[in-house]
């Protein structure tokens, strides 16, 4: 980003008369707006449609398919509807906090995009404390959610806000601890450095690096789901208990902001998991030169493509989990965090340290990653086998065409 600003200022001499801080600020604002409009908004909107379509098919329904081709414009219709609705503030609400809360949630989510990489060199700011920044800034979301729950002056909202705070604060611990093995292996907190320390092939990814990172990968992914209030950890907004949780009293645009943050958060979870554990934008060099040799070397199109593809696959997995697993109870959620994830993530850190020392002494341990990769491959294989068995037993037929 700084390089880009340098480049723009260098090429447009009239900008040199304006103080550099202001120029930087304007450039930043411009790119933040672009990011918001062309990536976050589009992603959040389209995912809301994709999620409902996937949910429909999982439940043997079709899902929205009337607005536009195959219902693709449904999200625009929904957004417009919320735009036109009254922005209602309850009489007994703490007005200032109530009005501010959605923006804080949104800002906490959106600020994470500063360090989310998209490709080699495609990152808004390659902070040297990248992942630490994510952990710090995403805590702002808790403040916003608690604010909205408190200021609504409604017991459902308050309960939702409280639960959310308890949940996010608890899961912050295993998530941070699950990131530590990766940081130990990389020796850097920067997102691009973490990606560079991995390789293009699955067995070079951190998820399969050693048994401890393998476990850390699952802890991080599940913990991130909990932090993002996704099912099976959607206790803060449990529809069947709390109406809608912390956003019960919100309507119109402010409601959209909450949902916007939630869906954009899906991408953040996926992108962070891909960055930390699944190799990021690494592509085999020959693919790069053969396929995209025409393009300029500094634009890593293949890498960006691979990165976004992996992220979108994880987004699909998150949606798939949401429509499979029932919601946990509050005590179960706390059990999972404190009795299972926290001890395991501590063991992971110690284990990774020992592993690093041992791997220096005995290079044979490097082959463990192939074994782990095969183990990881077993998961989709087992699921495929179970599906085949279920299909055979139910005598059902595969229908892949999504256009109905």
């Amino acid at each position: 980003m700084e390089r880009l600003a340098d480049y723009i200022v260098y090429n447009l001499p009239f900008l040199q008369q304006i103080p550099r801080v202001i120029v930087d600020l304007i450039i930043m604002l411009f790119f933040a707006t672009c990011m918001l409009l062309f990536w976050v908004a589009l992603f959040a909107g389209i995912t809301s449609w994709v999620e409902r379509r996937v949910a429909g098919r999982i439940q043997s329904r079709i899902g929205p398919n009337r607005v536009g081709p195959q219902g693709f414009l449904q999200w625009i219709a929904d957004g417009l509807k919320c735009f036109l609705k009254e922005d209602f503030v309850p009489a007994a609400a703490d007005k200032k906090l109530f009005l501010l809360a959605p923006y804080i949630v949104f800002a906490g989510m959106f600020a994470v995009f500063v360090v989310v990489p998209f490709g080699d060199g495609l990152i808004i700011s390659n902070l040297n404390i990248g992942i630490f920044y994510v952990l710090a800034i995403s805590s702002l979301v808790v403040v916003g959610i608690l604010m909205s729950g408190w200021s609504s002056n409604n017991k459902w909202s308050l309960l939702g806000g409280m639960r959310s705070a308890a949940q996010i604060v608890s899961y912050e611990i295993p998530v941070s601890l699950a990131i530590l093995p990766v940081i130990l292996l990389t020796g850097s907190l920067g997102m691009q450095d973490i990606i560079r320390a991995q390789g293009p092939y699955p067995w070079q990814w951190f998820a399969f690096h050693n048994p401890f990172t393998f476990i850390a990968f699952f802890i991080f992914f599940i913990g991130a789901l909990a932090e993002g209030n996704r099912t099976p950890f959607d206790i803060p907004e449990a529809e069947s208990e709390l109406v809608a949780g912390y956003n019960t009293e919100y309507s119109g645009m402010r409601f959209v902001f909450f949902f916007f943050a939630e869906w954009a958060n899906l991408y953040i979870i996926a992108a962070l998991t891909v960055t930390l554990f699944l190799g990021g934008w690494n592509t085999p060099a020959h693919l790069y030169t053969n396929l995209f040799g025409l393009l300029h070397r500094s634009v890593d199109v293949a890498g960006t493509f691979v990165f976004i593809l992996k992220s979108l696959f994880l987004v699909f997995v998150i949606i798939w989990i949401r429509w499979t697993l029932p919601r946990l109870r509050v005590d179960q959620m706390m059990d999972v965090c404190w009795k299972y994830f926290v001890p395991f993530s501590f063991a992971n850190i110690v284990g990774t340290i020992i592993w690093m020392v041992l791997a220096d002494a005995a290079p044979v341990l490097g082959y463990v990653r192939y074994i782990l990769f095969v183990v990881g491959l077993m998961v989709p294989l087992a699921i495929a086998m179970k599906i085949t068995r279920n299909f055979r037993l139910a005598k059902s037929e595969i229908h892949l065409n999504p256009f109905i």
Partner: protein
Amino acid sequence: MATTASTDAVPGFRGTYFGRIKNAIISIMEGMSVTLGYLLQRPITIQYPDRTPKPVKDTLPERYRGILELDMKTCTACLACERACPIGCIKIEVVKDKETKKRYITRFDIDIAKCMYCGLCVDPCPGGAIRHTNEFEGSTSDVQYLVRRFVPPGERIEPAKPKKKEKEEAGAEGS
């Protein structure tokens, strides 16, 4: 994940620490393969009304009891249907012209909103004049539009002459 300590009261959820983790992994995988299986199957939704392969009306069974229909040409104004209807949704008015000694139907209303499609009015009709159709889409903007008026207000219609032969046919046709 579903198998945590506090669910000890539920049989089958008990187990050792690692046993529960194993249970969680296996059951989650099992569940996820079930849902993915459904994702790959054809949805069972029938997209009524506009995206069905055939109009739903044509797929109904032959003896489907839909909205009632009346053939004024065969109705003899015997009032059997009005008497048979348990909720009185059929209203027939017959006047007798004093000079010509002829009977005329001045009103024949069936209130579809009240009708429960029991078919009791269809059975006694001697000429098979009143019968069910396979029409079932009765929604209107106002409930009063559901009163079907077979004699336009202000007009009078001469009923058909009862015939012996038709009576038998009507019996054979049934409801």
